[in-house]
């Protein structure tokens, strides 16, 4: 399974909701406004650190660049759309829209 999250963690419960159900080891992909969760030093950093403790966490580069997010929490893996597709090759998708 690949859980995908596209919502801001500040106003939406998507990231928190899928973390409750995603088994340890399941990869998590942040894209669109979901990538705000990957920024370092924020109020929601604890949520993403919790995710990183049990999951590989990926963030889409084009979405990070669009939003000017430069300083990422250590451990977040930045991928392009080809990387997104690679993850989909390896795992059925659980879209946590």
């Amino acid at each position: 399974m690949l859980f995908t999250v596209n919502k801001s963690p500040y106003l939406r419960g998507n990231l928190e909701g899928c973390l409750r159900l995603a088994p340890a080891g399941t990869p998590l992909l942040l894209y669109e406004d979901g990538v705000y969760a990957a920024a370092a030093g924020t109020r929601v950093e604890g949520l993403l650190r919790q995710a990183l403790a049990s999951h590989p966490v990926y963030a889409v580069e084009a979405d990070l660049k669009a939003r000017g997010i430069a300083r990422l929490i250590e451990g977040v893996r930045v991928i392009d759309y080809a990387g997104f597709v690679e993850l989909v090759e390896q795992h059925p998708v659980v879209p946590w829209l």
Partner: protein
Amino acid sequence: MEHGEPRGEPSGAPPRKVLVLMRKAPYGSLYNWEGLQVLLIMGAYKMQGLVDIAVAFVEDGVFAITQGQDPSSLGMKAIAKTYPALPDFEVDRFYVDGQSLADRNLTLDDLVIKPEILDAAGMARLLAEQDAILPF
């Protein structure tokens, strides 16, 4: 990362396992009405042995199946009342996330159908079994 291997052609393959994942509330937006339409069509494909179909209610998706809904004064169609008829359309695997029910002060007695209640691990297993998950 490496490529996954393509599977064989679907004809003759076992039925695709499809889950409609209801996470949003009814009426404020149309999504779970649309998920319901997908369940109905998937039932027809299940009859042909092409797919297996189930529906899971998680987070605000549980509000789709509560009793007592009456949107008539808003001129909208009631959503919950269609669910009890789904088994006639070959859709009969209903699951609900227990935590989502409890958070909303709901029990099986509040629902128009009697889905199987799953804990987080059970819900994760259900999600892991699927070939395709359709979110609404």
